[in-house]
């Protein structure tokens, strides 16, 4: 049977550029951290020049990446609701989360 949709409303929820950038930056941060561990953790001397850059990049990108998730919110200034209401809910129901 042929079925054709004449009219329908679909409210789309796009996973936009900010989310893709978030994954890209966290990946980059993890990569730089691995390169820095080559130099300082495993003692490979040929990675010494990259080691310092790796440490700085890993820390910087790890700080920037969550900011992009906040920008993706429609109301970025209300980000503190996440923490506040989580703590309030935990105080209310925390025992059941842990025990149950």
């Amino acid at each position, binding site marked *: 049977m042929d*079925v054709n*949709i004449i*009219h329908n409303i679909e409210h789309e929820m796009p996973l936009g550029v900010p989310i893709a950038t978030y994954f890209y930056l966290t990946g980059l941060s993890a990569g730089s951290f691995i390169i820095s561990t080559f130099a300082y953790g495993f003692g490979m001397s040929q990675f010494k020049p990259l080691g310092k850059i790796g440490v700085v990049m890993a820390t910087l990108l790890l700080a920037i990446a969550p900011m992009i998730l906040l920008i993706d919110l*429609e109301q970025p200034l209300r980000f503190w609701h996440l923490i506040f209401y989580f703590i309030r809910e935990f105080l209310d129901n925390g025992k059941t989360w842990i025990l149950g």
Partner: protein
Amino acid sequence: MKKSTGKGKRYAMRIDLRRCIGCHTCSVACKAENRVPVSVFRSWVKIIEKGRYPNITRHFLPSLCNQCDHPPCVINCPVQATWKREDGIVIIDEHRCIGCKYCLASCPYNARYINPLIPIVQKCYFCHHRVYAGLEPACVEACPAGARVFGDLNNPEEEITKLLSKHPFQVLKHEMGTHPKVYYISADLDAMDPFAGRKEWT
């Protein structure tokens, strides 16, 4: 209807597709009542066409938030900005919503939208400001064919309870386990199937 306090109520809507004429009056009434901006809808009519010429039938499916008994949007909200009231209506606290769009992703009925003017999530809430005042929702009052009936399922005297006890009814996506409270009578199965007619899925 009397002025309602919401205690001991279980609001539901029944949409009779034998009566629906696909006139979009419900969409317009909802837009006017709730000041829904352009490009988004709280209540809309899905229209499909079945068959090949000359044997074509057209089917309608008026859609709105199904006010589920087990709402996935409420479970997924990270700031508890949406919850189910004791009369069964799922509402949103617009001052608490941060616009993370998790509820849009989890709603199986596509009922939620981001308001383009004030960036928060909104949806149909059975016009609870009108229900509180003892009126019916705007779409129910506006329907010229009387296809929509709104009422309290806990009251055996109301029209909706009598109708639902007499007629077989369908709900959208019952396999999701959301227990929706918008009941359809003699809806077309292909109109209820979100994948029917979508060429990218076949």
